[in-house]
């Protein structure tokens, strides 16, 4: 079969997949047929369509399945890639290696490694001969270039496999012509070699030109449901590990783009305040190293020979500012606004006389998703074209926004995706890239924009403050209703997911298409994993004045921590052990299995010293299940331990975590993601938050914003990866957070006898730091470094 024109015009869908038995191996291997393409060109290029993943099956009995059980956010994120998926291609290079420009962002989650593994497996190549780069913004990909929701492997696994298998088939066909054998007598051997029955061999490198075709050609390939496992499923180190620890890995601010000199911004003292006028523009321009100063609505941009000189110049700016929209507001006033917006919990049906309720309300304060590598971008905006370099999870949306902002057609704006030094939700947006483009245009020169740490913490996006109200109704010892109402400052989803939700609204399950973006995301991710009778979870969002975004795992950490605290209270109310109660109410066998695993491996129920306790919690999301058992030490001598400029407090001393992520591509990468998620969960429970006072966030340093540090991290951490027969990979990047947060919350409540009503637990204590100035907006560079050596 030969097709002409772009391979994308065939409108492929899941109907091309067929299942058949294959009994040629040692046992029956279930195989499916997929249609792929060999694209016309000088060398071998293979392409594949995305195939729709079937929705997850629901298995709840007394509780009616919630939307997320039938069709969740990952189904949606996979669904929206369908129309453009055939544009995903793998090339075989002249040295016999494979190249793939991944249309996703690598920010530490390990997708360059896992994607290389999938290709290496299907092509019988060593991992080091698979080269993964990050594709620049490709507008024709529409929604298929959004990195989020831990969806990369879920949505790209099958197309990448199919494209690799198409390439392998084309290599075999070329080898058959060269060797004069039938294709089905040839085998590929690890290392990129094709071998005939008589032992004659030919390398991929020798075949790549012969395997090329003049015109696009559709081919069918057969894939077993699960790969053989030569590479997939084996623990592999990150493909960029060596570059990272030798200093060779490049992030946006490491790029050497000609004339793109260091640039920083002097910002308003109140959040989102705007520039009225600068009083000493000439003096700032005359400072050492400074080349350009530009006035923009968001602040005064300064370009200099070094970032150090930018810092000095930012601090020297004397300006008048318009107050931002939250001037005068503080945590207390925002919380009062949230509480006033809380909808009443749904009316209960008439209940028997003996019904009782267990209620618990929790407040979650603002948190920062700022990574180590601050908002940064290189921008070179000319009159007729522009080029941007930045770590971007939504480069297509960024490209359109930048084009509009600098007044250029989209096709004149090249947006390169650079590896990011962390994301945690932050890089779903492109604040740095957009600012850099506007500054470059205003100055007329290329710039390398870097946000100061203080800006990244104070003016960067935050996870919204929210409240959770839960009411459970018990009749006798049975939970007959569970109601949870989350009221939150608005979460901004206008990074492309919002556009996708609008475009595909008609495809969403009945009713969901009419909801707002955030409510849709909420309903597509949330699920109470217990048989609790009538379950209702609702989200109300208010107040659009803050710079928000989803933080790692979006709503789930807060929702699950609040829920699991109540589960412990309900268990106590009916006289049941927290583990036994969860086990007997778990609605899903995968959840029950991970729960059993942590209880067994973690020695649930062992005798603990007073002031210390275990906590246990579960979570179901990302096509998988997680459970966490922690031990916490809340004894005064531990809580009061002293570390300079630090928050110590309760110490989580041990974490036992189990994850069922379906088909695991790279167990070592999965373990790393869980370990990272564990530290996030601990931070959310115990130490990390932003304080809003008088119109601005106070935190301006890593010694103000208390993410988990070595003195907080658990000395003992075990991650157990559950064996799985599933043919489908689950998500990993965010899966470690929610169960850990919830388990730490529960352990803290059991150790102290007090169920927290706010998180993190230290938020209302006296500030553990002296806030840095707001004018100037960034702190001075220290000079005492030579006295602090060790």
């Amino acid at each position, binding site marked *: 079969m030969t097709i002409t024109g772009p391979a994308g015009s065939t409108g492929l869908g899941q109907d091309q997949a067929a299942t058949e038995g294959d009994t040629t191996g040692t046992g029956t291997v279930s195989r499916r047929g997929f249609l792929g393409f060999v694209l016309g060109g000088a060398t071998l290029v293979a392409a594949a369509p995305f195939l729709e993943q079937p929705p997850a099956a629901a298995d709840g009995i007394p509780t009616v399945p919630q939307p997320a059980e039938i069709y969740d956010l990952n189904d949606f994120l996979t669904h929206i890639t369908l129309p453009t998926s055939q544009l995903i291609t793998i090339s075989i290079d002249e040295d016999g290696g494979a190249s793939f420009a991944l249309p996703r962002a690598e*920010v*530490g989650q390990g997708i360059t490694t896992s994607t290389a593994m999938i290709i290496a497996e299907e092509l019988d190549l060593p991992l080091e001969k698979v080269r993964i780069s990050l594709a620049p913004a490709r507008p024709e990909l529409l929604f298929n270039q959004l990195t989020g929701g831990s969806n990369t492997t879920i949505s790209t696994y099958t197309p990448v496999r199919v494209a690799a298998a198409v390439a392998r088939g084309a290599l075999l066909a070329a080898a058959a012509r060269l060797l004069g054998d039938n294709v089905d007598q040839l085998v590929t051997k690890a290392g990129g070699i094709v071998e005939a029955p008589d032992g004659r061999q030919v390398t991929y490198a020798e075949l790549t030109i012969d395997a090329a075709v003049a015109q696009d050609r559709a081919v069918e390939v057969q894939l077993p449901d699960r790969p053989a496992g030569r590479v997939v499923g084996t623990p592999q180190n*990150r493909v960029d*590990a060596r*570059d*990272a*620890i*030798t*200093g*060779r*890995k*490049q*992030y946006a*601010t490491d790029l*050497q783009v000609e004339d793109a000199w*260091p640039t920083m911004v002097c910002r308003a003292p109140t959040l989102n305040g705007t520039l009225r006028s600068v009083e000493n523009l000439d003096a700032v321009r005359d400072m*050492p*190293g400074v080349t350009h100063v530009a006035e923009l609505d968001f602040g005064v941009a300064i370009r200099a*020979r*070094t*970032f*150090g*000189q930018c*810092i000095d110049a930012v601090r020297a700016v004397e300006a008048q500012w318009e107050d931002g929209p939250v001037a005068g507001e503080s945590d207390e006033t925002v919380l009062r606004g949230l509480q006033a917006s809380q909808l009443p919990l749904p009316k209960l049906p008439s209940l028997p006389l003996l019904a009782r309720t267990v209620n618990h309300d929790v407040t979650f304060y603002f948190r920062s998703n*700022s990574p*180590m*590598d*601050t908002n940064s971008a290189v921008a070179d905006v000319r009159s007729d074209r522009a080029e941007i370099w930045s770590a971007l999870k939504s480069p297509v949306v960024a490209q359109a926004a930048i084009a509009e902002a600098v007044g250029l057609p989209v096709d004149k704006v090249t947006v390169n995706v650079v590896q*990011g*030094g*962390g994301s945690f939700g932050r890089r779903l947006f492109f604040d740095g890239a957009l600012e850099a483009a506007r500054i470059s245009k205003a100055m007329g020169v290329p710039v390398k924009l*870097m946000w100061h*740490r203080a800006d990244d913490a104070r003016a960067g996006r935050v996870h919204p403050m929210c409240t959770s109200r839960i009411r459970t109704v018990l009749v006798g010892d049975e939970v007959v209703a569970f109601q949870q109402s989350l009221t939150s400052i608005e979460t901004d989803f206008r990074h492309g997911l919002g556009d996708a939700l609008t475009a595909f609204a008609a495809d969403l399950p009945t009713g969901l298409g009419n909801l707002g973006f955030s409510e849709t995301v909420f309903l597509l991710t949330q699920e109470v994993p217990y048989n609790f009778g009538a379950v209702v979870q609702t989200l109300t969002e208010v107040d659009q004045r803050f710079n928000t975004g989803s933080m790692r795992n979006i709503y789930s950490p807060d929702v699950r921590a609040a829920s699991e605290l109540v589960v412990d209270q309900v268990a106590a109310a009916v006289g049941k052990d927290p583990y036994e109660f969860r086990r007997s109410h778990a609605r899903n066998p995968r959840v029950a299995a991970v729960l059993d695993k942590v209880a067994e491996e973690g020695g649930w129920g062992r005798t603990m010293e007073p002031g210390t306790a275990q906590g246990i919690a579960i979570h179901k999301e990302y096509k998988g299940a997680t459970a966490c058992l922690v031990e916490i030490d809340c004894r005064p001598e531990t809580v009061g331990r002293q*570390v300079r400029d630090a928050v110590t407090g309760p110490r989580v001393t041990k974490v036992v975590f189990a994850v069922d992520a379906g088909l695991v591509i790279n167990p070592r990468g999965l373990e*790393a993601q869980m*370990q*990272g*998620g*564990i*530290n*996030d969960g601990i931070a959310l429970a115990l130490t990390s938050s932003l304080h809003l006072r008088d119109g601005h966030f106070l935190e301006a*340093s*890593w010694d103000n914003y208390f993410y*988990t*540090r*070595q*003195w907080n*991290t658990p*000395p003992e*951490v075990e991650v157990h990866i559950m064996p799985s027969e599933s043919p489908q990979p689950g998500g990993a990047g965010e899966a470690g957070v929610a169960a850990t947060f919830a388990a730490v919350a529960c352990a803290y409540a059991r150790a102290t006898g007090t169920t927290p009503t706010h998180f993190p637990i230290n938020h209302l204590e006296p500030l553990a730091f002296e806030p840095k100035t707001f004018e100037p907006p960034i*702190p*001075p*560079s*220290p*000079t005492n*470094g*030579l006295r*602090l*050596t*060790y």
Partner: protein
Amino acid sequence: MPTQTFRLNGETVTVDVEDDVRVLWVLRDLLGVTGPKYGCGINVCKACTSHVNGRAFNPCAVRVGDLAADDEVTTIEGLPATVGAELHPMQEAWLEHDVAQCGYCQPGQVMAAVALVNKARREGRTITDADLDGIRNICRCGTYTRIREAVVDGESRM
């Protein structure tokens, strides 16, 4: 413009720049040595940790004019040469434990770990849990568990 001279990764370098520019920017912006990362600029996050005369220091907090001509600055790029190998044993340990995630803080983590082991040795002891608890280098990916394992492993390889 003043001229600054110091030793960097085994070679003498001379740069035309004002005395008060911090060493981090001289390295990154003028010399193109980008292994030391910016994470805060106020000697808190430790992402720029490098060595001066064999001791850990943070170049974001040192004026270039405060370096003497014979002060030896070692960044992650120059660490392997200090042991005459392709990789320092601590880097080998980092690879063995696949510590890095996003990798941004890891050059600083490795440089801090080497200095910590050397400090403990000067004090005639080995790395303790208290030493590990006291490492201030922040890792927002939360690679702390593997950092702790790698430091102890790297100590045994050094």
